């Protein structure tokens, strides 16, 4: 019987971190072309399509993008919950392939955020004095920013557990160290804990270097069956577990500012994989802000709740440590075009293929990617293995 175990058979990155020659569609196209070339598949092999823009007015809406790419899927997913959308897509692709609903799924993302804007306007009304409909009318009048939302989680974590700015800074430092090994990373100059805590305060307690960069970029992942992958170009990377969970959407509704839904998505993904956090060789965690990654380390079980600060400060997250994190430099130093989830999957796959170059984690057999969407809201956890479970 054919082996329908879902595997990642192709990955592709568009140009990053700054690509003025590409628009958002161009990033989707280039990432798709490169993932196809990487895998050895043809575009006509794709019968499942997933992309994460939910706005019909945008060309990267899933329906429009499939048309532009010339893909007529028989399985189709436009789940858009922000940065973790692509981890959710993997969950859905895995289920669809296991159920026989399709054979080969393209998951693709691209954005020209840096070239287009370079700034973040906060959220709520788009124009001064504009009417705000729906749930944002209970937040928008107060001028909170996206960074301010994550800062509220950091503030509460510091209050409850004594977490320090220096401990959060250790996360930014680890990412910058790894970015130094990635020729494409947006910022590569070494960074110290002092540099981070002395950088200007953006929204207390988050400093400039606690915040991700703003980039252009795109990526694509092709998921197919182990059977189909057998004669393709790359060693297959097995999807051992994929799960999602949400606790809230808007930051004012977060039930516990020190815990995310990654507690649930992680537990379920580990159960599917039959593995524990001890089995993981490297993690690719969504580091929109240092606090985002810190909460995930705790919620996924790599350390106890409240001990993320000391764990990060121990050096465990650096190459050579017990749990190298964000080996491409992460959102904090490599690239963040708005929704980073696809890059987590691509870097985890590179690690398990042994193609991570100077940032290779020796003997990496199990990698975990965890995306965060919204305001620490929708979490998606994917556990990948060099070998089948």
């Amino acid at each position: 019987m054919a082996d329908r175990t879902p595997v990642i058979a192709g990955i592709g990155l568009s140009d990053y971190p700054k690509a003025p020659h590409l628009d958002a569609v161009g990033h989707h196209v280039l990432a798709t072309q490169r993932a196809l070339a990487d895998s050895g598949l043809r575009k006509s092999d794709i019968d499942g399509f997933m992309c994460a823009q939910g706005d019909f007015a945008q060309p990267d809406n899933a329906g429009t993008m499939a048309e532009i790419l010339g893909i007529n899927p028989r399985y189709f997913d436009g789940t858009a919950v922000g940065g973790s959308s692509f981890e959710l897509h993997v969950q859905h692709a895995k289920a669809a392939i296991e159920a026989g609903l399709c054979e080969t799924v393209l998951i693709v993302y691209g954005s020209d955020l840096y070239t287009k804007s370079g700034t973040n306007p906060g959220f709520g009304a788009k124009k001064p004095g504009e009417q705000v409909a729906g749930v944002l009318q209970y937040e928008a009048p107060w001028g909170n920013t996206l960074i301010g939302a994550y800062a509220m989680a950091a503030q509460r974590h510091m209050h409850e557990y004594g977490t320090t700015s220096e401990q959060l800074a250790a996360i930014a430092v680890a990412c910058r160290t790894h970015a130094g090994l990635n020729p494409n990373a947006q910022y590569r100059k070494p960074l110290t804990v002092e540099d981070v805590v002395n950088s200007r305060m953006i929204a207390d307690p988050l400093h400039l270097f606690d915040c991700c960069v703003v980039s252009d970029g795109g990526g694509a992942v092709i998921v197919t069956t182990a059977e189909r992958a057998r004669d393709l170009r790359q060693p297959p990377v097995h999807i051992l577990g994929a799960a999602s969970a949400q606790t809230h959407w808007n930051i004012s509704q977060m039930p516990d500012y020190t815990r995310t839904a990654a507690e649930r998505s992680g537990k379920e993904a580990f159960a599917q994989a039959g593995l524990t956090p001890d089995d993981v060789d490297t993690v690719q965690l969504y580091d929109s802000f240092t606090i985002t990654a810190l909460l995930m380390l705790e919620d996924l079980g790599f350390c106890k709740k409240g001990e993320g600060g000391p764990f990060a400060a121990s050096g465990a997250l650096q190459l050579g440590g017990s749990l190298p994190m964000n080996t491409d430099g992460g959102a904090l130093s490599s690239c963040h075009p708005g929704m980073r989830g696809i890059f987590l999957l691509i870097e985890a796959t590179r690690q398990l293929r042994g193609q991570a170059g100077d940032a290779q984690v020796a003997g990496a057999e199990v990698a975990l990617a965890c995306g965060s969407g919204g305001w620490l809201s929708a979490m998606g956890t994917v556990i990948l293995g060099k070998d089948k479970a």
Partner: protein
Amino acid sequence: MTNVTTPPTEGRPVPLLDAAGRPYWEATLRGELLVQECPGCGHRQFYPRQICVECGDTPGWLTTEGRGTVHTFSVVRQQGAYPFNQWTPYAVAVVELDEGPRIMGNVIGCEVDEVRIGMRVEVEFVPLNEEASLPFWRPAAT
């Protein structure tokens, strides 16, 4: 901004009143802060919805005392968007009301560096337009 008695409202986003929130905003004009309370299960919630998030029933309304505790907060020091860019630094807090639900708002009437988790605050309504006043929060004695 945080030290002014009456915070400016010019240019702030304006609520578009809808079925769920109209009673809430109308009450702000009377100087009352409402949350919802479910007649079925007693669950209290904010922001206003057309469903009780706990049991699925249709919620009713409860007038609060307008007092609470800062559950968490941030001080926004960099902000590109008008009008807020005129007012930095300012404090944005999530206030846990004595009645239970949490609500986001600005803490005024003290220096931003004085805002703390656990700080007691009380509501102060500032007129916005004919349809709504905005609840701000200032330090309270108890």
